[in-house]
């Protein structure tokens, strides 16, 4: 290869690497790995993450159609198989056909639209969901060594289980996914047509309303685990039992830890429920699909779109669904962990293969939630608009605020009576140190 090109490439990677390290301030193990390697593996992880998400999206669409058909006692897509042959494969080739259809259609732009925003909107709708992938931990963070050499970039992968291990993971996801609404609102407005406009307005009101309840409902999780770092939340759940299912812990019969966990579950399970229902609303899924209700609005904000641009909206919606499922699993159902010590230490014993196995377990859990989303979609009727707003503002918002208060009271009680759940004293010392530090 041309040496100047290699140099330029290395320089670019170096820049990315520094950023990656800055994103992970507590990089104790990563500190020994050369920056260049960190950057290289970060890029590899990004590519794999995107590939997995996009692949999952296309098969989620297929699953939606199949499950729907099953529930309505139909067959569903079953013809498309391996391309250029006649082998049907239970319709597993359908996503490829759909994608090709989207790509090959004419990119038609109606005359009455505001062209720039019309083209911008689908891009804005799809990107947030894809960006949020980078903070979800899908496997152990133990540094692993590849069994083979890769030219230029060592074979040590720091933090293989996550792309960016930042301390504000869930809040980052909320922040980025709150930008999704721009795509939808702009699509509605730029189409310059009344049904899309109504869809856009409905959607922005709905998403802003439910963001509030959603954000408040995860605060008990932060309070219980004492961190906003998703990997640490997962670690906590491995040690103390899953937040929504406290029995699933390595030693479920130890009452000293189980009792407080059960008490906290009284708060965390309602919090999980609010989060789950808000996720339905945030992803514009049934029973909250008012922005795109066919019967009233033709197609909602995407009525004037066709071809790949329409497919991008579709893609964004399903990517958001997958990210919601992943977040639900990470926050309430133990993330990639299972309650077995040997499994959780697979990264040490099996190296990269352990990581892959853990990732597969994570994907399996996420699939469970995706199926739940599909099941709900095909079995519930749509909400009325005022009922939707009532539920968000008058039921979920006060309930999640009350949950925060109850959770704080419980934690204080547990600390006081020595449940051994939290290191109370050290937290207090830390707080004192921070105040002293800042008021220097």
């Amino acid at each position, binding site marked *: 290869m041309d040496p100047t090109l290699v140099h330029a490439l290395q320089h670019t990677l170096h820049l990315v690497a520094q950023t990656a390290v800055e994103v992970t301030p507590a990089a104790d193990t990563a500190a020994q790995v050369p920056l260049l390697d960190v950057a290289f593996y970060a890029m590899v992880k990004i590519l794999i993450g995107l590939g997995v998400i996009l692949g999952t999206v296309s098969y989620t669409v297929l699953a939606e159609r199949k499950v729907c058909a099953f529930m309505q006692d139909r067959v569903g897509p079953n013809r498309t198989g391996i391309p250029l042959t006649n082998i049907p494969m239970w319709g597993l080739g359908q996503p490829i056909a759909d994608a090709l259809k989207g790509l090959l259609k004419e990119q038609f732009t109606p005359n009455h639209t505001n062209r720039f925003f019309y083209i911008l909107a689908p891009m804005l709708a799809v990107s947030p969901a894809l960006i949020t992938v980078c903070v979800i931990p899908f496997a152990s963070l133990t540094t692993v060594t590849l069994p083979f050499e890769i030219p230029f970039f060592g074979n040590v992968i720091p933090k293989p289980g996550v792309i960016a291990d930042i301390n504000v993971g869930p809040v980052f996801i909320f922040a980025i996914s709150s930008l999704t609404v721009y795509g939808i609102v702009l699509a509605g407005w730029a189409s310059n047509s009344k049904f899309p406009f109504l869809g856009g307005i409905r959607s922005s009101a709905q998403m802003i309303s439910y963001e509030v309840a959603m954000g408040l409902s995860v605060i008990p999780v932060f309070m219980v685990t004492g961190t906003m770092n998703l990997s640490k939340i997962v670690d906590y759940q491995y040690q103390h039992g899953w937040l929504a299912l406290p029995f699933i812990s390595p030693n479920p019969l130890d009452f000293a830890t189980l009792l407080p966990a059960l008490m906290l579950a009284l708060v965390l399970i309602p919090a999980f429920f609010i989060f789950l229902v808000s996720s339905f609303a945030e992803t514009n899924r049934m029973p909250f699909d008012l922005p795109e209700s066919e019967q009233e609005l033709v197609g909602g904000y995407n009525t004037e779109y066709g071809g790949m641009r329409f497919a991008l909206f579709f893609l964004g919606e399903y990517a958001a669904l997958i990210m919601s499922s992943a977040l639900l699993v990470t926050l309430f159902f133990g993330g990639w962990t299972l309650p077995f010590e040997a499994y959780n230490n697979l990264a040490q014993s099996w190296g990269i293969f352990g990581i892959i196995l853990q990732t597969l377990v994570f994907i399996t859990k996420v699939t469970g939630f995706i199926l739940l989303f599909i099941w709900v979609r095909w079995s519930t009727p749509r909400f009325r608009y005022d009922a939707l707003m009532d539920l968000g503002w008058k039921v979920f918002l006060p309930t999640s605020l009350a949950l925060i208060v109850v959770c704080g009271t419980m934690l204080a009680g547990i600390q006081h009576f020595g449940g051994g759940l939290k290191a109370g004293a050290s937290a207090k010392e830390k707080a*004192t140190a921070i*105040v*002293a530090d800042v*008021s220097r």
Partner: protein
Amino acid sequence: MPYLAPEIILTALAIVLLLLEAYGAISARSVGIWSLVGIAVAIVVTLFTEVGAEPMYFWTDPNAAEGTAGKGLYMWDATARFYKLFFLGTTGLVIWMSMESAAQPVGPKTQPIRAEFYILPLFVAAGMCLLASAADFMVLFVSLELVTITFYILVAYQRESATALEAGVKYLILGGLATAFLVMGIAYVAGFAGTTSFAGIIAKYNTPDHLPVAVALGLLMILVGFGFKIASVPFHLWAPDVYQGAPTPITAFLSVGSKAAGFIVLVRVLNEAFGPTAYATWGPALTAIAGCSLVLGNFAAMHQRNIKRMLAYSGVGHSGFILMAVLSGGVPDGPGIAQAGMTAVAVYLATYFLASLTAFLVITIVSPTPEEESIRSYNGLWQRSPLLAAALAASLISLAGIPPFAGFVGKLGAFVVALQFHHYGLFFIAAISAVAGLYYYLGVVKAMFWSEPLEVTPIQVSVPTQVLLTILIFLLIATGLCMEVFAWLVR
């Protein structure tokens, strides 16, 4: 009594009343009465709370020995107590006026007075009490916003009439601009001083050198923010339209409460956060502002036909007089503002409080609708209601600063301070403006006693209000005759 008690009482009462009213357990009028009771309790609590000098946090600092002590957020000194009583009294009278105006017949486009109209002033009072005690820019800013935002709501209350809407929009937009200046100024000062506490800032910048440019710029921007609150030229543009469009009780609240709130934070910041060296920065700026306010306020008031507009311009003029008393800093090694200046400000505000609120109470009764706010409606008021005419005359003469009445004491204090600190030019301008003030105040008095009334129907005044008016007239004269009262108040 614990510190922070008045604020907590007011806020808690406001929330309880809101809930009671929301569930229909209590009528709007009884909400008003309960609000008055709450104010009275808060006044008693304030009177019985000992003065403590150290600013405090409401959190025990484990590192108190290591240097965070004495840099608290909230202080309860004699000044704080005086201004708290001032604000509580103002709020009480404003709620009284609101109840008085609720008893008046409503016009076709007037909103009826609802319970929130009595409850929101309680929040304003809590915010103003906090302002009186602020020892840190954080508390100062959020409390000032609490006051300002509540006023946005109250000013636009009669939103179906065009003048009220105009008033609301003007107050909102110019208030937002002033807040932007204030917060940017605070950001400059805090960014360079490394702290938001007054004690920390003065510890850093009370040196014989000049202020750093950035801090001086920050201070000037803060003064712009406060200049809006006290309605001084050139930040007075909102005052006439907002005073005219707002409901009369709220106009009274703006003209007394909001102005005094602006002055307490002004003297606090200049006195506690900046030392005598900062005078080189703010002295000339405030001198110019004071001069312009005196001239423009008093001369523009002469040509007003609407009594609320007239009082708005005269209020601008009063800001000028009070600023004259503020301009008493710059003594090397002295405080930011001399004790004489602080006292003069407090006395002037106390006399202004009595006179202005009496005037607005009469206006509430005589001018229930915007059409009756012209000065011509006051022709021959003596024949329609001698008590109202006497009260308005007493308050206007007091505002003009004629000897037997309270206002004279206030003006005297301001003039003495100006002479003491060698502001001869300002003294001269103020003297001319005071004479101009006589013209328009006495014009109204003349109309009330020596002009033929437009209509002769007598005006009914309820018995409690008659008693209140009598007390106010008595106080206007008594405090003017016996200045010792002020010495006791400011102690």
